[in-house]
């Protein structure tokens, strides 16, 4: 356990000196926090929202608005679109971080001396995974907190805040976020074992955001709507996926394979 931290701390000391990684880890959460708040702000007061009626929303959404004024419900509908965007962070940040941390070590051949130490490959893998996943989860949670604070300040009454900090959102941010980060890390490890350029590895690993973007567009176009059942299934699906991906990544992460087959 201690060695996992030793490795994670080294990763942070090293990889955060890279401008590209720093950019992703800082800029993306800033954008993801600012964007919904700006939209909320420009949407203006509930009076201006008065024209927004339930008819503009998918029928299923009305269930979620129980007890809310139609204005707040309208705001909630708009802000809801961003829940999925908050989940982009736990996917994108680990993809970037792990690509630089693994392909970087591969091209500079720094892994061999590490593998010569009594560290187990599982500790090494865990150290790298933790190093990539924690900043992502931290950034997600932090920007969600800032976002909730912004909602509290920008909206009148507790209606919208209660929704945004309700079980549905919290479950998505607190449970699904980390599960997605694990998937992103595992995929980045697999891609990194094959790639020789961290930027290429990053771009390929970034493809993990596609399914999420798909969901996002399906939601804005009204095809689906993220509700409790769907989010639960999503969590189960990602958890199962994580187990499979992790098993595969562990398989790739063997001393001999890293030294002789990672080219």
């Amino acid at each position, binding site marked *: 356990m201690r*060695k996992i931290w*030793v*490795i994670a701390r*080294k990763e942070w*000391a*090293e990889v955060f*000196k*890279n401008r590209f990684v720093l950019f992703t880890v800082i800029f993306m959460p800033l954008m993801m926090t600012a964007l919904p708040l700006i939209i909320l702000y420009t949407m203006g007061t509930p009076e201006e929202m008065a024209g927004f009626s339930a008819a503009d929303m998918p029928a299923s959404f009305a269930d979620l608005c129980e007890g809310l004024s139609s204005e707040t419900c309208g705001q909630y509908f708009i802000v809801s679109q961003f829940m999925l965007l908050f989940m982009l962070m736990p996917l994108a940040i680990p993809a970037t971080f792990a690509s630089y941390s693994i392909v970087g070590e591969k091209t*500079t*051949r*720094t*892994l*061999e*001396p*590490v*593998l*010569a*130490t*009594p*560290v187990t490959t599982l500790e090494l893998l865990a150290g790298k995974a933790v190093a990539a996943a924690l900043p992502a989860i931290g950034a997600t949670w932090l920007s969600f907190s800032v976002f909730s604070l912004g909602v509290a300040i920008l909206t009148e009454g507790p209606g919208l805040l209660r929704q945004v900090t309700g079980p549905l959102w919290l479950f998505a941010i607190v449970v699904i976020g980390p599960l997605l980060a694990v998937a992103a890390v595992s995929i980045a490890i697999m891609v990194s074992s094959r790639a020789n350029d961290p930027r290429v590895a990053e771009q390929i690993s970034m493809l993990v955001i596609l399914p999420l973007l798909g969901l996002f567009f399906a939601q804005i176009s009204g095809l689906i709507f993220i509700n409790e059942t769907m989010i639960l299934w999503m969590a189960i699906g990602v958890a199962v996926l994580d187990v499979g991906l992790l098993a595969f990544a562990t398989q790739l992460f063997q*001393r*001999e394979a890293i*030294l*002789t087959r990672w080219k």
Partner: protein
Amino acid sequence: MIVVKGLTKRFGDVLAVDGLDMEVKPGEIFGFLGPNGAGKTTTIRMLSALISPTSGEAKVAGYEVGREDNEIRRNVGILTESPGLYARLSAERNLSFFAELYDVEDVAGQVERYLRLLGLWDRRGDVAATFSKGMRQKLAIARAMLHEPKVLFLDEPTAGLDPEMARLVREFINELKDRGRTIFLCTHNLDEADRLCDRIAVVNTRLLALDTPEALRAKLYDRVVVIHLSAASPAYEKVVSEQSFVRSVEIKDNKLVVGLDDPERNNPELIRALVDAGADIQFVGELRRSLEEIYLRLVK
């Protein structure tokens, strides 16, 4: 300290190391000499528990390769083929990371000790990217020593260094030996092996020869004595060739070049015979075959 029996490594169709048998004694500098692609790096990787042998067995510091790998890793240090430093981290941070991975008790103390020993203490805060090739190599050697390993594997420690730096690294290797450490030195540099090593294994996939540098020379060639005369003549050549112990003789300018089995015993008699024949001897010396000739003959 290291015992190897039938050690073999295959990469698919490529036979990298074939049936290696040898023994390295505690406290010696053991040279592992061979051309590029001879399997030196592969052997070091097997002996430091980085990759597993295809067949055969080996014991390092008393632990069996493949069964007690973690113990082996604790007890050996390795200077890998490329120094593999974290370019963005300081010299000190590079070392402290490894000290922690090796479970060194006094991390700061050991890091300081080796930074000072290798003359890098003043540059401890600088990132490794700013270091010269020689300094990087020194830092990588320091990294291999932090946990005070019993056996130190050095994979071509002076490759790519300028002569001055190479000399400093060699001096340091000699110092390490004085501290009673066993050193396994891979090199394709004959001169280096000759100067540093107590014994040399010549390898090219298989083990071709293993002995002290002197014995390798003696075993593979007759010893040759060169006698400088004020004037050489065929008469003297005849006198020399009549001696029963002489294997070969040849005139070169004013020199007689004589092949002998045992110069220490035969020289006095040979010289007496020449003096009796009236030769003016100016100087007698031994022609030392370079290890290079021996090596090329072996590897071809």
